[in-house]
């Protein structure tokens, strides 16, 4: 237990300092394909090049992963030429795969000091898909044929597609797709296929290498205007990392044309539908390609939830430690800061009028956005997650300390003053003890918020119970989701109860009697 704790701390210190002897940090975005490729890179580096590797998978999107790479918080992650071309470089026009690859390689190197590997081999483009047996699309093969006739159809796409430059707005304009506003759904990509399969939507923006296109008998409508740029998969590395780790470029060269489209579809399917571990799928593939030696592993996941949890106990322990360190670290810091702030605000009303709007605003920033703001400043991982959680726990504690102390009956204060207590003595002996139930209630709120929000920390590579949740959502693996969800819910309940007990211990019986 201590060893795991120390390891986590060390890893975080190392990734902050960028020390030469540190492990190579591999990132991925939060969908199966990205995780599988990232696993392959990790395994290859570990087994063939004997390097130690840290996995920061399931990062919360292109922006998070790219910023992390730029800052050196991760060394490598897989992405697609089209994403780099349109979303990051904000360019468009070119459709030739070779040329797009050349452009992103050149521009990323000069603008960001980031290197692209050669193409991995497969193209994973966006594609509009419908159910194969949906009679309404029987005679429709080209997107051009949908022009102006989709008013009554339900449409779903991954979140990222809604936001990108080559995403929904221009796509629907180009093909004149007249969806009604309330028929458009933005959804986790992992859940989208089940949604169309279960007829909750009629059209989705699928990823062309997703195994579920075939499995669910979906039909791809052809992009006849060549709207989508090529999305050749490749690996990205920070140039500085390749200088300190020459094995990165060696590994990159082994990925050139390593995976065909069919092979990728097959591997995605193994993970998404057959619940194989991405690690096993990636490793088996490398063995088959003779890049590493070893025995093919063909185990499906334990289906009994208890046995499954038991089999993951080491992983669970690591998650628990990460989650505890994050939540209680943030709460502890907040407690140290918020109580003095809350108290001093009761002494300086004019300051309160300035401070409360600020912390109220912080509280309203969506968690992911707050994490996003912090990435350019602090990179990814433990530190920005800790700061974000710290900021979230400020408000409930400051607010309750303030209102708790303000709410103390003025007569008690005057009487104490009249007896001869100093201001500090009144604060410590009268105001704080009387406000304690309210202060503890604030702490309780903060604790529940922080333990819940800490699951989002996984999106910026800080680990914790969010890690299996997001990977589970990405790979449609409900066991994996529960592996994170159940313990984090239990932890929240347990902490809530503990603070409730603290109230029994620390709050005077005299005021508990009164209420």
């Amino acid at each position, binding site marked *: 237990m201590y060893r795991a704790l120390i390891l986590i701390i060390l890893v975080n210190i190392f990734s902050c300092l960028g020390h030469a002897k540190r492990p190579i940090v591999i990132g991925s975005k939060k969908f199966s394909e990205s995780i599988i490729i990232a696993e392959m890179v990790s395994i290859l580096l570990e087994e063939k090049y004997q390097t130690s590797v840290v996995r920061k998978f399931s990062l919360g999107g292109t922006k998070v992963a790219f910023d992390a790479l730029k800052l050196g918080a991760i060394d490598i992650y897989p992405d697609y030429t089209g994403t780099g071309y349109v979303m990051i470089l904000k360019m468009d026009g070119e459709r030739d795969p070779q040329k797009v690859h050349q452009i992103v390689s050149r521009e990323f190197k000069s603008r960001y000091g980031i290197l692209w590997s050669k193409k991995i081999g497969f193209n994973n483009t966006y594609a509009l898909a419908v159910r194969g047996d949906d009679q309404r699309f029987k005679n429709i093969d080209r997107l051009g044929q949908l022009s102006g006739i989709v008013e009554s159809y339900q449409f779903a796409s991954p979140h990222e597609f809604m936001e990108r430059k080559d995403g929904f707005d221009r796509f629907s304009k180009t093909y004149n797709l007249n969806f009604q506003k309330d028929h458009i759904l933005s959804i986790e990509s992992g859940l989208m296929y089940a949604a169309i399969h279960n007829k909750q939507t009629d059209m989705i923006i699928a990823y062309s290498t997703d195994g579920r296109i075939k499995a669910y008998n979906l039909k791809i409508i052809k992009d006849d205007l060549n709207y989508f740029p090529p999305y050749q998969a490749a690996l990205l590395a920070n140039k500085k990392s390749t200088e300190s780790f020459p094995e990165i470029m060696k590994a990159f060269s082994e990925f050139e044309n390593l995976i065909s489209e069919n092979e990728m579809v097959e591997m995605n399917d193994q993970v998404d539908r057959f619940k194989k571990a991405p690690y096993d799928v990636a490793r088996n593939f490398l063995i088959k390609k003779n890049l590493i030696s070893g025995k093919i592993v063909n185990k499906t996941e334990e289906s009994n939830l208890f046995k499954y949890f038991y089999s993951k106990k080491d992983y669970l322990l690591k998650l628990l430690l990460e989650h505890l360190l994050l939540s209680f670290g943030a709460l502890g810091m907040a407690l140290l800061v918020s109580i003095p702030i809350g108290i001093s605000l009761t002494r300086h009303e004019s300051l309160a009028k300035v401070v409360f709007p600020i912390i109220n605003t912080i509280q309203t920033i969506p968690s992911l956005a707050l994490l996003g703001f912090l990435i350019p400043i602090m990179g990814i991982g433990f530190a920005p997650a800790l700061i974000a959680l710290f900021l979230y726990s400020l408000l409930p504690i400051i607010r309750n300390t303030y209102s708790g102390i303000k709410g103390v009956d003025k007569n*008690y204060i005057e*009487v*104490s003053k*009249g*007896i*001869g207590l100093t201001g500090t003595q009144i604060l410590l002996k009268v105001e704080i003890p*009387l406000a304690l139930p309210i202060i503890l209630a604030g702490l309780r709120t903060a604790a529940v918020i922080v333990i819940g929000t800490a699951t989002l920390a996984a999106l910026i590579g800080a680990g914790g119970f969010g890690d299996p949740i997001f990977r589970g959502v990405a790979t449609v693996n409900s066991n994996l989701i529960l592996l994170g969800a159940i313990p984090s819910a239990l932890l929240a309940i347990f902490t809530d109860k503990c603070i409730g007990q603290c109230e029994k211990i620390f709050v*005077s019986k*005299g005021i508990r009697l009164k209420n």
Partner: protein
Amino acid sequence: MVELFNTRKFMIKVEKLTKIFPGSGAKAVEDVSFTLEKGEIGCIIGTSGCGKTTTLKMINRLIEPTEGQIFVDENHSHTVDPISWRRKIGYVVQKAGLLPHMTVKQNISLLSTILEKDQSYITRRVRELMSIINLPYDEYQERYPSELSGGQQQRVGIARALMEDPPIMLMDEPFGALDPVTRNSLHSEFWDLNQKLHKTILIVTHDLTEAFKLGDLVILMDQGKIVQKGSKEDFLKRPANKFVEEFVKGEGLV
């Protein structure tokens, strides 16, 4: 200022005390002067809002007077810091003002705890005071104020003021919140008590019976000013004006 050097020892002396609260034009207290000698009990009486509490709080320096002088135990208020000033004065407020999160013992010993007196002294003194106020120590010391009756709370409030044996006590309607029977018995207890303790005490009340029963000096106030001060005899036999006469009559004491 000549009076300051009188041979008779005064314990509370106020001169031309005036208070105008910020933002209000009216004088809450105007030109109030009186003297209490050692062992005397003074009672300030008057209708609600006439400035009794304000006068008392000025003496305890909870309120800064706009004008006037205050002497306590022959010290001028300017020569002593307010914290030590208040620690020399026992202070009893309306409805006892016991701190709800502290036990009876903790409430009584609050000032001694602050002054870091040792535990054995504290326990001994609390026992002593609780026997004086007729609350058995073993039964009551661990109770919280919410577990006491109004009369018991009021006694604890008095014990708290006596804890560090101050020469002077200021009491703001100490028996105000009690039913007449309890009030009467507390009056008697209190009277007997002070025969032993010889404290100089200033009591604020709106009950003339109480003032006449306890007060060596009765001070009748109206609209911030003293209308008459003197003994019970003075009030009954030599009312200063019509107002005093009416006031005494209204209370049914004539």
